[in-house]
């Protein structure tokens, strides 16, 4: 097994792509408005704090991981050229994304606690802090649970990207285009129908609502939600996606281009 070499190779290549993604985003969000304000003579209305308040910096990382994870075919091409098996590729890729999630999540939380909160005086900087922070009375436990909760979300996004990317990589470019157009439309319509059906009065007080409330961690106390059901759900979903990704990786092959 050449997992160590492949992990090193993937880490080096993908950390560069991740860095490029951050660079483009920061230039677009911070530098471009500044330059436009400078050119149009409205520099007085430019506020760095306002941009900071309104831009989901920690959310970017999840999006980047999703995109990065979806692009697996290029690496497969290089690795199969160099006699690397699909299993080794899978194991190395999971290791690299695991490291990225740990680093990215730590940086996100550090940024939020050390910069965002003091600057904006807002505590609801992510999903956990918005919905679940009152469940714990101890500050240290809250930070720890926030870390685990956020890591699980990032892992979900990453595995979702891997699942979609690996699935698409099994098809020809034409079929990929068809799927990329058709799936969002069909998915969107289905989602609208499901949401409409669930919000319909007829479905209220049924098992679906109760189940949803259970997953989201509703408690008898107003404003206090239990994060554990949703964390366990995310963990199970991640495990299922991991299993699917492993299967899809084993089916990867060079396409006739």
């Amino acid at each position, binding site marked *: 097994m050449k997992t160590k070499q492949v992990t*090193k190779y993937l880490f080096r290549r993908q950390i560069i792509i991740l860095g490029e993604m951050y660079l483009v985003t920061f230039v677009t969000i911070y530098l471009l408005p500044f330059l436009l304000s400078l050119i149009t003579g409205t520099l007085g209305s430019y506020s760095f704090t306002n941009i900071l308040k309104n831009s989901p910096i920690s959310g970017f990382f999840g999006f980047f991981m999703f995109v990065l994870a979806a692009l697996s075919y290029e690496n497969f091409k290089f690795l199969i050229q*160099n006699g690397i098996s699909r299993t080794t590729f899978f194991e190395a890729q999971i290791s690299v994304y695991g490291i990225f999630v740990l680093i990215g999540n730590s940086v996100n939380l550090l940024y939020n606690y050390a910069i965002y909160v003091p600057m904006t005086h807002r505590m609801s900087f992510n999903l956990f802090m918005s919905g679940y922070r009152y469940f714990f009375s101890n500050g240290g436990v809250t930070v720890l649970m926030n870390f685990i909760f956020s890591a699980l979300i990032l892992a979900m996004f990453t595995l979702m990207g891997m699942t979609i990317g690996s699935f698409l990589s099994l098809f020809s470019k034409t079929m990929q285009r068809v799927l990329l157009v058709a799936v969002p439309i069909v998915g969107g319509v289905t989602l609208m129908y499901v949401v409409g059906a669930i919000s319909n009065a007829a479905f209220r007080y049924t098992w679906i609502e109760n189940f949803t409330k259970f997953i989201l961690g509703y408690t008898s106390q107003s404003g206090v939600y239990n994060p554990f059901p949703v964390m366990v759900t995310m963990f199970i979903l991640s495990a299922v996606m991991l299993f699917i990704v492993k299967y899809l990786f084993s089916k990867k092959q060079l396409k006739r281009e």
Partner: protein
Amino acid sequence: MSMLEVSHVSKSFGSKNVLQDVTITFDEGKIYGLLGRNGAGKSTLLNIMTNRTFADSGEVKIDSENINDNDAKLGLMFLMSEVNLYSNGSTLDQIIADTEMMYGSFDHQLAKRLATKFELDMATKFGKLSTGYNSIFKLILALCVPVKFVLLDEPVLGLDANHREMFYSELIDSFTNNPRTFIISTHLIEEVANLISDVIVLDEGRIMLDQPVEEVLAKTHSVVGPQRDVDAYTKGLNVIGHDDMGNIRVNYVYGELDDRRLPDTVQLSNFDLQKLFIFLTNQFEGSRHYEN
């Protein structure tokens, strides 16, 4: 001595059967010529042998161990093909460093010498290479990686005559210094005829011929003379093709000649691999009566 075995491999794309029950064995320390017309299944076979694609049935083994999803065995092979599997944005130096990381070592000295000889700038990005230099770079990689089986699919694609000569000469040098197995799939039969030790002819997904070149050529006979005498002499033999020049006829026979008497008006000689290939893979009268 390592052995690469392809056993009962079949593959189809849609309704087209590209490979049908292919069984071949490649021994270490030989240069094989894998010949076949366009669409005969050569590239598909090489892709299956290196686990780039999957066979519908059958298996590929190295030293009796299946190569499927097997790093140790896959790392013993390197397939150079016209398909570009390297990132266009990477420099040639970077690709070499990454390749070395995957294979564990790399002959930098040879790579440097070949790059100088072919005037290839290793700081160039892979995507900026012309078709010819793209092939040259991949050939350099193929000659410098520490593998037992080097598979070359149309290796001289886009190379001019000078570069082709240089490559063949380097290939022989490399083989002499470090004997290993080369499997060369090509259309340019004349160019590799003096290079290969064994020939494999693939036609419509089936192995038509798999023998040492020397044995194959010993079975080729061109029978030249007046048409009536030539036809009479070759009656009952495996005539795979013929040429007519006025009253003179050449019948091409593949196989052993029996002890029949040769008429004074008829002359016998051998013919080359390219001619044999053309006759075997054409739908000539008698072309299917080949020997395996």
